[in-house]
């Protein structure tokens, strides 16, 4: 995975790795807030990447998540775009259309404006592609599962037979 979680001390070094990796393949680099992560895109430019990350969060906003799981959505879209020129154009044009419909910059627009922009586009192929990818990427991320309280694979742990399948303790006594 090109997206890397970075400790602050390693940020500069790793960010330059990411930049070098991206330079080799022609895509942009997106650096997360405080350098917590870096996303090296292989096809899309950084502006498109940033817009897609914001759009992914606007579609499925979880205040408890930082941007890293949303950046993975942009990464999934970028990887698909690298193999599909038509998709790359759909995403690049779509991000530009978001900017235009938001009065110049989707990223700088207020939430209300951004949501109005999305509502106006929700039947477009661009919107549908991004929304579908968020559903199958964001909610398929084990880091997200942990935050939502889903424990994932259980067979290798012996199932839940001795790990709380029936541990509910708050139902009143039936009377």
């Amino acid at each position, binding site marked *: 995975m090109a997206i890397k979680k970075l400790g602050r001390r390693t940020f500069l070094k790793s960010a330059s790795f990411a930049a070098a990796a991206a330079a080799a393949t022609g895509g942009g680099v997106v650096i997360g807030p405080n350098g917590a992560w870096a996303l090296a895109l292989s096809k899309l430019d950084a502006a498109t990447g940033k817009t897609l990350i914001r759009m992914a969060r606007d579609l499925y906003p979880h205040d408890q998540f930082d941007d890293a799981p949303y950046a993975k959505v942009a990464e999934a879209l970028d990887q698909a775009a690298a193999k599909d020129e038509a998709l790359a154009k759909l995403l690049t044009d779509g991000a530009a259309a978001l900017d235009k419909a938001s009065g110049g910059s989707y990223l700088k627009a207020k939430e209300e404006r951004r949501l109005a922009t999305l509502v106006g586009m929700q039947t477009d192929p661009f919107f549908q592609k991004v929304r579908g990818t968020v*559903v199958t990427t964001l*909610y398929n991320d084990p880091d997200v*599962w942990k935050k939502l309280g889903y424990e994932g694979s259980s067979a290798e742990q012996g199932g839940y037979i001795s790990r709380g399948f029936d541990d509910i303790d708050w139902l009143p006594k039936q009377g």
Partner: protein
Amino acid sequence: MAKYELSDDSVVVIIGSGAGGGTLANELCQKGIKVVLLEAGQRNEIEDFVNNEWEAFGMLSWLDPRTTSGTWRVHQDFSGLPAWICKTVGGSTTHWAGASLRLQEHEFKTRTVYGDIPGTNLLDWPITLADLEPYYAKAEDKMGVTRTNGIPGLPGNNNFKVMEYGARKLGYKEVHTGRMAINSQPRDGRGSCQQIGFCFAGCKSGAKWSTLYTEIPKAEATGKLDLRPGAQVLQINHDDSGKASGVVYADAEGNHHEQKARIVCVAGNSIESPRLLLNSASGKYPDGLANSSGMVGKNYMRHMTASVYSIFEKPVHMYRGTTMAGIVQDEARLDPGRGFVGGYEFETLSLGVPFMAAFLDPGAWGRQFASAMDHYSHMAGMWIVGEDMPQEKNGITLNKDVKDKFGLPVANVHFDDHPNDVAMRNHAYIQGSAIHGAAGAIQSFHTPPYPSTHNLGTNRMSEKAKDGVVNKHGQTHDIKNLFVSDGSQFTTGGAENPTLTIVTLAIRQADFIADAMAKKEI
């Protein structure tokens, strides 16, 4: 394992290795009959199964192209995926939840009991519950169904306890952990349920009955079974007299072969079985095989389904443990006073986060949806499954505009809800929410139907040849050595999960076929 020649015209060819085909294969092999079992999917074993929803879906599901039409919401949300069924050795018995309920007596004679409901094509089955009872008993024993044969029920998980509490508070009486083909104690060489969850992803412990690791290896042990995975049947051939003579299939490399046969049994489910009969049209049978009635592909039923998911103040962790070991049966009764005919069951259901995101409210986005997902660990869930009405316009047709990789027209699945289905669903939404509400739910979601898991009726059983495709033994009215051995035989659907009845019919059909072969009738 046996290996028969392609030219061996003494074999019984069975198409599909799921509940119907896999069971029939074993039953015939146990009687010493030579069987070639053709399965379109690969042989994935228990060790291949993964506790990961999307990964398992990709491994087990039938993902070849299909199209949809009609007013059902599946057409809108999942237009290329009408059904959530499997293409793998064991068929959908790898994926099923294990609920094993007998049909009720009145459900075999709905035309008589419900009357002439406008817009429906209701018909009485040519058999009764009494006819099937001895075979139901054999099926329950074979599958190790809990609450039969002295087998204890499964323990209730958190999701069940929530449903049970609410249901009893509302006054429902028939509330328990179900009749499940999942071992609650070791049986038949398989261990007991480890409360893993992921029943839909293939049971990693083998506690859940599946033909993959029960019927099929037992059939192999007889030395009579020639199982060919990766063999997709393209056409059924017939001789000049009109009898089925063999089948053409593509192997995993795409090479075509013709396997000769004494008898052909179609068990590819209610979408692929009629598609195969229609795709086998010939000069003699221009409308497809066994289709003199015009009923092949018609009267498609998918059960009235829906789900209710609710959020509670405190954690539930509904995904822990057996997915469907919980049932409320009171609404399955015959009671037209509720504003609809037929009945429905509440059964516990959970989805993991990946599938919950895809299915809770398909297409939805925004803060409200994300907020629901934020409460995932506090959710309880139930599935609603009830009898839907057979309608002649609902069904499988060949979509000549879309071809599969073999160049054959794919199945189009058309479905419109009948007003009776809608009335039942609305009733069930209200009652289901009330159950969770009585247990303290803060908010409930009314989740629309998933892609169909219960696909029924498209080669239905009928007394008279003009009303359906097969007789009371699943033998086609038109061609005496051509049988249908899956859920497409169902004349009507009942309120109950269909697998037990499919297995029951397969056991009964095996007796009929063996007897007819011995008497040289076929």
